[in-house]
């Protein structure tokens, strides 16, 4: 069985120089999508990943991460759109730093690509009808 989870990794300062994610791929056959990253050598780092793979490999990967001293949090935050409230005005389009909102050329409806969303939350307050909701 495959699993796909969004996780937040907090790297202690001494770990930021190590190729941790690379080992998740090589040793455990997992795939990843970096959602957000802030890693500077010698400083505490933060990495938000969508990690996918076979269930038992996923669990092994998480065990490995825990043993390295990295603190793992599941990403419980999520931005979703209330489809009833959205008026498709488009005010969000230029606010979003990752271009998660795209205009469908023919209908001019605003499409929300959830996979591009990095849960920064900028759209939540900039949305005039308050259709974007941040879940914790």
């Amino acid at each position, binding site marked *: 069985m495959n699993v796909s989870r969004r996780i937040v990794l907090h790297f202690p300062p001494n770990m930021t120089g190590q190729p941790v994610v690379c080992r998740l791929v090589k040793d455990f056959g997992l795939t990843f999508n970096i959602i957000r990253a802030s890693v500077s050598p010698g400083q505490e780092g933060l990495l938000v990943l969508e990690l996918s793979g076979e269930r038992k490999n996923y669990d092994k990967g998480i065990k490995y991460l825990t043993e390295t001293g990295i603190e793992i949090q599941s990403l419980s935050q999520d931005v979703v759109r209330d489809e009833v*409230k959205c*008026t*498709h*005005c*488009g*005010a*969000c*389009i*230029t*606010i979003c730093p990752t271009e998660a909102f795209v*205009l469908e050329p023919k*209908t*001019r*409806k605003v499409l929300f690509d959830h996979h591009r969303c990095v849960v920064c939350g900028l759209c939540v*307050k*900039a949305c*005039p*009808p*308050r259709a974007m909701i941040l879940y914790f």
Partner: protein
Amino acid sequence: MAKTITEINEKIRKGRAVVVTAEEVIDIAREKGVRKAAEEIDVVTTGTFSPMCGSGAFLNIGHSKPRIKLGGGKVYLNDVPVYTGIAAVDVFIGATALPDDDPRNKFYPGEFNYGGGYVMQELVSGKDIRLTAAAFGTDCYPRKKLETLINIKDINEAILFNVRNAYQNYNVAVNLSDKVRYTYMGVLKPNLGNANYCSAGQLSPLLNDPYYKTIGVGTRIFLGGGTGYVAWHGTQHSPTALRGDNGVPRQGAGTLAVIGDLKQMKPEWLVGTSMLGYGCTLTVGIGVPIPILSEEIFRYTTVSDAGIMAPIVDYSEAYPQREPDIVAEVSYAELRSGHIKVQGKDVPTSSLSSYPKAVEIASILKQRIEEGEFLLTEPVAPLPGVESGISFKPLKERPIS
């Protein structure tokens, strides 16, 4: 080919009227030619769905037992203050009213998550609303306090009356400064980070009848999902605004004051809206039918986004300081492409007016006319046109003494 409204209404009653939206008409005119299309088409429907702060509603609450004189007192609906300076149990709720305890911009930028616009939407959706009132008491209206739930279905009248809606064209807002600006035109990122515009463009009512040849006082319209009427020209109506060769204003020009029965309206077409750091308002859906009485009137309805220009204005300095400076001019076709070039920079664009909803409104209106439910009206008086010389005046401040 001249037709009359009476003739068009006759066709509507028989289910034979040819109705198209202001979007559809563009291609039809291109394919068939203006003359032929003008003969065939009877009505062109327009639409717009946009935040419109000049919106509000008069409510007659009904008389409590014993009676209370709300007029001149203090009244709140869901903690939002309403205007009471009229008759005993009439109040006016404005779209931008905020609860007294809203922090405004004390925590900058303020969120303005609730206000008059939201109360109006909840009222229209049939939700109970909390009314709290304090009055001074008179011999004939002895009561001084009232706390009750009210519902739109129980109160006597609920009349939407918007003093300024459906702006004929509007500014495109940018920010030339180096910090974020929170405006009624949305969040403007620094250094030309984005450009926000707010018009339905080729679908917008007054852009399809630029000289107000058919839209006038008494014109029956789609308003907030129900039926309404043009009551007057709107505040700040400025017919003498700069116009292009096609007659279309190149800046904000005409406006409409509209009226209608709130009880027939629908919450999906009157939407409470919040502008970060600016305030609360109401997004209003309006659709106006344009009777094709002549080839000239028809030609105006064929305007497309490429033929409508708007001024780009800096909302960090020029707008707040009321300077007339315009950064550049741009067409709605360019704005809708998603990017415009301003001062050599590629600037992404966003709209505050919903084009898909404007299409939906024009289509609903088209359907109502085709099905014979919606007849056109002859205006009882025209809106002031270019010849009136009326323009939008700034305030000249004068010392009080």
